[in-house]
């Protein structure tokens, strides 16, 4: 089923890649990354730019009575200071939930919230100015746990959000009462997932330039969503978007941190306008943690009914997300948690209750797998526990509940391709699952185990966040006298390879050499709008738009070739870099001559490619039904082998075997890289990552204290690509970057249980937690409960 790998090669020192899709090729912008010339936002030339710095709230919850900047303004070298007085327009990525200001107004809601910002001639002066700003506040009770914020006597963080709830979701599909009644086994368990953070390698930065003569703003920023940043700037600055230009340079990762406009971006722009010049706002690593937008701490109650041969009859889930101080993506996060209970297995009845809670902690947002990850940890874990109780193999119970495409889930999500069965088959075989008993490790303190899980995710939300009536993706191709083909896309390449995907798609359709193609991306003055790199939409939607554009361009070029060759279009044999007459290869013209002909009378060729998800894919009619809707789900299965040092509680992930159904691998090497990165990120969440607050103060706001795994503790990850050839994806392609993550934590939990006989239901699996679970004796002061048996039916 896999498309043949076509190796690329160097000829005479120049790369000659086989053209098109299904090719393992390096990223088109990779050379700059390895030779040090790639410019990220902090690398952009900024001679003479002012230094921008943000003053952040030391209070978790307080009425903000006054921000006194007079002493700070009086310092020599301070050019401008802004506070909440400079912007009274709230913003936020969800149009109906915009309750955040770039600089706090009236209320401080988390330690680290921006309160004021300074533009000064150098860093020392900016720091002195920050130190000279005085805040007058009246402190309020603060809530750091969801349960406390929901108490009836709790002070509301937002006056219009009763019970400190941003959103309550109650969805019921199918008849869960009947489903549970029909079950032979029902179990309910509670799962606790710590809050985590993206920890992308590039700290936040923005460079803002206000041209006072023309009234123009230019912003360079680390964003995944230049379009949302653009609209937020226009909104908050009360500036016509026509006078704003947003440019995305190289970006050092995002994983969801940057899929909404971030406060420092608007702050940089406001500062530039206030200072009437250019401001460079470089953020520390600590500030990235405080900006946050990570995966919320989740308290999950999961209940599942199975027949004795493993058939799912009903599922009930309650999810409480601790959301932090502002709305952000919160509504979407709590909806995703319920929506993607469906779409992986065939469950006839699902009841979901979700609560998104405001707390005085940094606002959470979207993080790789958005909303679906913690719930998948809970579900797969519970499924394993129940399968074991029924004496069913972990693969067998999953195979008992497979879907069959095409189909529609009970909550209105369409599934057009479904490669999960093949994923399971490969993982079972490659991991040696059937022989695993012989690998458990004997009598010593080190025990080995293996566990599996499945997961899935959307290839872009079929209904966009902003309802504009515009296409969901637009791409432009430009060809002029030089014969080069320029691909103009708003798509934000953040390292995932979106520029490479569009290049390969265009090369495939046109058959031209990669050397003829160049990509101009994410500059609002030049490139078409793109909604952004989130929900894994780019390969599917922008890829389809690129194919559309390339087909249109090819048609124009074939017409021109026909004219130059003086034959009909049907008689043109198209080779990409040349065209000939069918049956007469000697009558051949090179690409340059074809272009020359095509330019006659009309000059430069520009063609546009479009893509829009049809309405029937945009989800069910229930409120919030669009969340989870997509044209293509990726599917993943993985097996994880661990060793556990029972004397230390230390778990080592030894090896992962992972299969991904990505529809079709436009670039198999890039797919492998994305899957490996996703698996590893899930491993980080499972093993060591958690944000920690003490009275609202972030205690792990560094890369030393927030533990992402180093190369030393990271295993080999074998990736197998399954190609279900989605009927709607470009060349059959779906996403590959978010789906695999959600299964990793429960696979590791299963492996630990296989090794030491105990199932842990709280993340992360730190040594102290694992030790306590093994020895069933919490040490004094331990907060995580040891795993408990589920209630009998």
């Amino acid at each position, binding site marked *: 089923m896999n498309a043949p790998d076509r190796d690329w090669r160097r000829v005479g020192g120049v790369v000659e890649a086989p053209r098109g899709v299904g090719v393992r090729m390096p990223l088109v912008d990779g050379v700059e990354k390895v030779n040090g010339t790639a410019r990220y936002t902090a690398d952009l030339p900024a001679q003479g730019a002012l230094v921008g710095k943000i003053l952040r709230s030391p209070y978790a919850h307080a009425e903000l009575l006054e921000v006194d900047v007079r002493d700070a303004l009086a310092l020599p070298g301070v050019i401008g200071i802004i506070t909440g007085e400079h912007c009274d327009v709230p913003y936020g990525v969800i149009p109906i939930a915009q309750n955040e200001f770039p600089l706090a107004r009236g209320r401080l809601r988390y330690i680290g919230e921006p309160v004021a910002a300074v533009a000064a001639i150098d860093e020392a002066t900016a720091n002195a100015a920050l130190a000279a700003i005085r805040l007058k506040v009246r402190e309020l009770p603060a809530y750091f746990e969801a349960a406390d914020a929901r108490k009836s006597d709790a002070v509301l963080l937002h006056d219009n959000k009763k019970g400190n709830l941003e959103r309550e979701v109650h969805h019921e599909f199918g008849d869960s009462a009947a489903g549970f009644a029909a079950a032979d086994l029902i179990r309910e368990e509670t799962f606790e997932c710590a809050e985590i953070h993206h920890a992308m390698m590039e700290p936040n930065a923005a460079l803002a330039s206000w041209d006072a003569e023309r009234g123009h703003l230019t912003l360079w920023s680390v964003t995944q969503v230049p379009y949302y940043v653009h609209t937020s700037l226009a909104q908050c600055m009360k500036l016509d978007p026509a006078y704003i230009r947003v440019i995305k340079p190289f970006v050092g990762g995002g994983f969801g941190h940057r899929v909404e406009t971030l406060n420092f971006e608007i702050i940089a722009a406001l500062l530039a306008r206030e200072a009437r010049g250019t401001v460079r706002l470089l953020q520390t690593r600590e500030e990235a943690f405080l900006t946050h937008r990570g995966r919320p701490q989740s308290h999950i109650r999961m209940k599942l009914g199975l027949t004795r041969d493993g058939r799912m009859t009903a599922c009930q889930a309650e999810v409480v997300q601790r959301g932090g101080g502002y709305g952000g993506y919160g509504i979407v996060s709590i909806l995703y948690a319920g929506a993607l209970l469906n779409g992986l297995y065939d469950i006839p009845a699902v009841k979901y209750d979700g609560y998104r809670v405001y707390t005085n902690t940094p606002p959470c947002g979207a993080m790789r797998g958005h909303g679906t990850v913690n719930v998948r940890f809970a579900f797969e874990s519970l499924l394993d526990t129940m399968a074991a109780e029924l004496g069913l193999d972990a693969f067998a119970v999953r195979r008992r509940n497979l879907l069959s495409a095409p189909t529609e889930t009970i909550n209105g999500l369409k599934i057009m391709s479904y490669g999960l069965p093949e994923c399971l088959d490969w993982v079972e075989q490659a991991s040696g699952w059937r022989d695993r008993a012989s690998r458990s490790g004997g009598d010593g303190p080190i025990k080995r185990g293996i566990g599996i899980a499945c997961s899935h995710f959307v290839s872009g939300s079929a209904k966009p966040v902003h309802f504009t009536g515009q296409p969901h993706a637009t791409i432009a191709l430009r060809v002029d006298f030089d014969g080069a083909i320029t691909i103009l896309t708003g798509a934000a390449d953040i*390292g995932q390879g979106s520029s490479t995907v569009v290049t390969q798609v265009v090369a495939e359709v046109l058959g031209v050499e990669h050397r003829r193609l160049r990509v101009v991306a994410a500059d609002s003055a030049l490139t078409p709008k793109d909604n952004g790199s989130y929900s894994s939409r780019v390969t599917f939607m922008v890829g389809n738009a690129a194919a559309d554009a390339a087909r249109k361009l090819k048609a124009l070029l074939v017409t021109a070739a026909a004219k130059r060759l003086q034959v009909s279009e049907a008689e043109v044999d198209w080779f990409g870099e040349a065209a000939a007459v069918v049956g007469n290869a000697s009558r051949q013209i090179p690409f340059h001559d074809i272009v020359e002909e095509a330019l006659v009378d009309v000059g430069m060729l520009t063609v546009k490619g479009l893509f829009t998800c049809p309405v029937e894919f945009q989800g069910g009619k229930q409120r919030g039904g669009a969340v989870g809707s997509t044209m293509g789900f990726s599917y993943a299965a993985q097996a994880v082998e661990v060793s556990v040092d029972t004397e230390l509680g230390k778990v080592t992930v030894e090896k992962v075997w992972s299969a991904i159904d990505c529809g079709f691998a436009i670039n198999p090497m890039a797919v492998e890289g994305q899957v490996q990165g996703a698996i590893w990120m899930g491993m980080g969440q499972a093993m060591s990552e958690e944000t920690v607050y003490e009275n609202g103060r972030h205690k792990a706001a*560094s890369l030393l204290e927030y533990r992402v795994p180093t*190369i030393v503790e*990271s295993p080999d990850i074998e990736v197998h690509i399954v190609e279900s050839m989605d009927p709607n994806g470009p060349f059959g392609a779906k996403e590959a970057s978010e789906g695999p993550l959600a299964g990793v934590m429960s696979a590791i939990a299963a492996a630990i249980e296989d090794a030491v006989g105990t199932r842990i239901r709280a993340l992360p699996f730190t040594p102290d937690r694992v030790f306590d679970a093994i020895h069933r004796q919490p040490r004094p002061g331990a907060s995580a409960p040891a795993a408990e048996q589920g209630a009998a039916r």
Partner: protein
Amino acid sequence: MKSLLNLWVNGRPREDAVAENALLVDYLRDTLGLTGTKQGCDGGECGACTVLVDGEPRLACSTLAHSVAGRRIETVEGAGRDGTLSRLQRAFHEHLGAQCGFCTPGMIMAAEALLRRTPQPSRDEIREALGGNLCRCTGYVKIIDSVEAAARCEEVSA
């Protein structure tokens, strides 16, 4: 207070007036415009700023510029020769050891130091040498593959 700093950067002699408390990373990035060396953390935690000082890997964010006076500094910009990528640069590019690329300069310099002292490292030796370089994109697998691939290649000749 600035004083004259003399050292070698990527094979070329430099003489610059540099503040006593200037960090090597800021000297390279701001004074020399060599922005290939990245700052990824608040000091000493991520390895993105790794450069070579007389062939040894050092964290430029935790090194005073004046403390390496007279030494030979190598950054990622100097790794190749005459527009040709070094074998490590080429391997990271061809084997997708770089995705977002932010950790890449530090990874390449740390790997360069490794290959000079251990020309044919095992995967575990590669892990050990890069243990101070964090990456958030790749899961490290293709980074190890890239270093192995580079070790198999001849270096670009001078």
